């Protein structure tokens, strides 16, 4: 008996697979959709080709002065020539290796924290958090171990932006946690103090805080004592940011079920041990993405130090664009600064999303 031989399957109709079908369902499913698609294509056509023309095709890439920018498009020569200033500000050129070294130390030092099975991560992290700032300050500021002193007024560019943002978040974190605990406290006096503090800083713009720290802080201090401009700005940033961190941490504290508090109390733990050993480890883990988001906001906000005359990345660009030798280069400068800020912020927001997905397990009830 002959075995029945099946014919091969017919291919699916063209209308349901392939590029055409995808376009049919995603772009041209109805007349309204078609109209929207055409409108979107028009928008893209309006924006993208001129942008590429300006930024890449017609752009000037090589040269040393403004006169070398002969073509129509962007003059990236300006950014190339001023790159050092954008990154390091007025930090002496021959000492810039110290800044680079600081950054590399941060990257290398923090790397083990991202390795999943690194032993004694908590201790290592704590040690890093304590030792690194001292090391970084020594390297950046100098004055000891035979390193030349570089005054903070010479710090600038992206380096200053990173310094302010990092110090801001590291300083604000412990203060913010204390404030959050205070706000959730059952002691009315502590609660009132914390709520007032938090709501005050959250209600005013950072710019007024910076103004305050630059003109009022000297009045608050005893005579003869004074801080330099950078430190004053940092104090303002830390106070301001701690209020936002406090609100983020409070969200985490509220998300911990009551049973955890009761269980900690039933174990005979006092307030600080219950918080430190049971509640905070869980709450802080929950709010890591929130803290990263706060850090992104802070990173963007550091550009405001322009108002009190510090030369961060944005102010360096603004200064360079005002240079008579490079008149009319504002667009290139700002586009470059925007790109740098964008890369940092976008990278961090992706990281926070990744964390959110990673930490999401096991907390669904």
């Amino acid at each position, binding site marked *: 008996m002959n075995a029945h031989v099946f014919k091969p399957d017919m291919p699916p109709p063209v209308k349901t697979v392939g590029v055409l079908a995808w376009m049919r369902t995603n772009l041209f499913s109805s007349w309204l959709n078609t109209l929207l698609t055409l409108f979107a294509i028009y928008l893209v056509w309006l924006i993208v080709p001129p942008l590429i023309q300006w930024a890449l095709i017609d752009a000037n890439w090589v040269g040393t002065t403004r006169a070398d920018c002969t073509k129509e498009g962007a003059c990236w020569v300006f950014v190339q020539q001023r790159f050092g200033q954008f990154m390091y500000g007025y930090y002496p050129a021959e000492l810039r290796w110290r800044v680079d070294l600081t950054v590399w130390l941060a990257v290398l030092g923090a790397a083990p924290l991202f390795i999943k099975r690194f032993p004694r991560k908590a201790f290592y992290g704590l040690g890093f958090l304590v030792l690194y700032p001292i090391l970084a300050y020594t390297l950046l500021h100098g004055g000891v171990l035979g390193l030349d002193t570089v005054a903070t007024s010479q710090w600038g560019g992206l380096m200053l932006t990173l310094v302010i943002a990092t110090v801001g978040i590291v300083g604000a974190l412990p203060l913010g946690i204390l404030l959050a605990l205070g706000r959730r406290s059952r002691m009315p006096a502590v609660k009132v*103090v914390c709520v007032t503090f938090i709501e005050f800083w959250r209600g005013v*713009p950072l710019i007024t805080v910076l103004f*305050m720290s630059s003109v009022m802080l000297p*009045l608050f201090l005893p005579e003869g004592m004074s801080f330099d401009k950078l430190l004053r700005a940092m104090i303002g940033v830390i106070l301001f940011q701690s209020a936002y961190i406090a609100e983020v941490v409070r969200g985490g504290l509220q998300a911990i079920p009551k049973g955890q508090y009761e269980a900690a109390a039933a174990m005979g733990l006092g307030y600080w041990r219950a918080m430190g050993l049971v509640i905070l480890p869980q709450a802080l883990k929950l709010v890591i993405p929130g803290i990263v988001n706060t850090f992104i906001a802070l990173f963007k906000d550091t550009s405001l130090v322009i108002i009190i005359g510090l030369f961060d990345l944005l102010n360096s660009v603004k200064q360079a664009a005002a240079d008579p030798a490079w008149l009319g280069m*504002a667009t290139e400068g700002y586009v470059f600064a925007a790109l740098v800020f*964008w890369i940092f912020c976008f990278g961090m927001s992706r990281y926070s999303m990744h964390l959110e997905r990673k930490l999401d397990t096991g907390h669904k009830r």
Partner: protein
Amino acid sequence: MQNQIGAPKGLSLNDPRVRAWLFQILTIVFVVGLGWYLFHNTQTNLQHRGITSGFDFLDRSAGFGIAQHLIPYVESDSYARVFVIGLLNTLLVTFIGVILATILGFIIGVARLSPNWMINKLATVYVETFRNIPPLLQILFWYFAVFLTLPGPRGSINIDDMFFISNRGLNMPGASMADGFWPFVVALVVAIAAIVVMVRLANKRFDETGVPFHKFWVGLALLIVIPGLSVLLFGSPVTWEVPQLKGFNFVGGWVLIPELLALTLALTIYTAAFIAEIVRSGIRSVSHGQTEAARSLGLREGPTLRKVIIPQALRVIIPPLTSQYLNLAKNSSLAAGIGYPEMVSLFAGTVLNQTGQAIEVIAITMSVYLAISISISLLMNWYNKRIALIER
């Protein structure tokens, strides 16, 4: 109290209530002490520098010009008037910014949910781009790289001989009151009253009989016909004055200075990116079951959206939207970077430099922002309570 059983009489540090009292007293002592310390230092410092404190300086004459003032102002006016001008300019930017950012944000947020691939991706690119660039940078970009590089008034971009865009800002026709103004206002009030009455009656009839009424179209007709009649009878409410190029600048009409344009544009674009995300997550938070339930009740797409999806989405959208409005109000202070005359640059900047009254000026500025923050959040809390889910 159960923990008093067997507890030793008298005060002991082992009693949590005693500890709580002690801790609170310490906190208060610390806060008051710190406050007194700062106050004392400030007093000595002020004395040594010869600065007299107090708010007397507000009555003194300012003596500088201001680029944009919504109320009449001359250089000899007082600092108090400068303060009012700064406040009004801040409110103006906030008001325009909130309206424009809400509109743009809602459009982009809905576009991010569009099944249309192109629209969806465009909206995503918009959000990811503008959300990750500092607002101050965007303001500086629009101001220095766009508006200041435009041609002067003579080479201005001319739209229909009515609007002129140049490096002096946007010149546009200005309205001034004409004969028909007050009749027009009266007609407008009458029309609105008529609409309110009509909606009440229509709702009552709908509740009683279930017969719907074309509220929207009738309302629109009322709004057009009654003021329209007033225009026909009494003449136009306003006369338009078109800007004319005379010499090196425009004369007549209204002008929006480039600082205002750059600031509003940047803040709108920046805030809209955040609002779009809020709208998107709000709409996505309404489960698909709600749509299906509405459809199975026989509601068509429009009513489903209006009566089922949006009311539920708004509950999620409103609280974060409020904080975005607050952020916009606070971000308007970034105008100090380009010198738009609002609270911070005018009052905390120029007035502070001229008078040297640091404490008073900063205190006034901060309290203005605190007042704005608190009033917006109170308003939104009230609204939030009104639309909150009433659970059994």
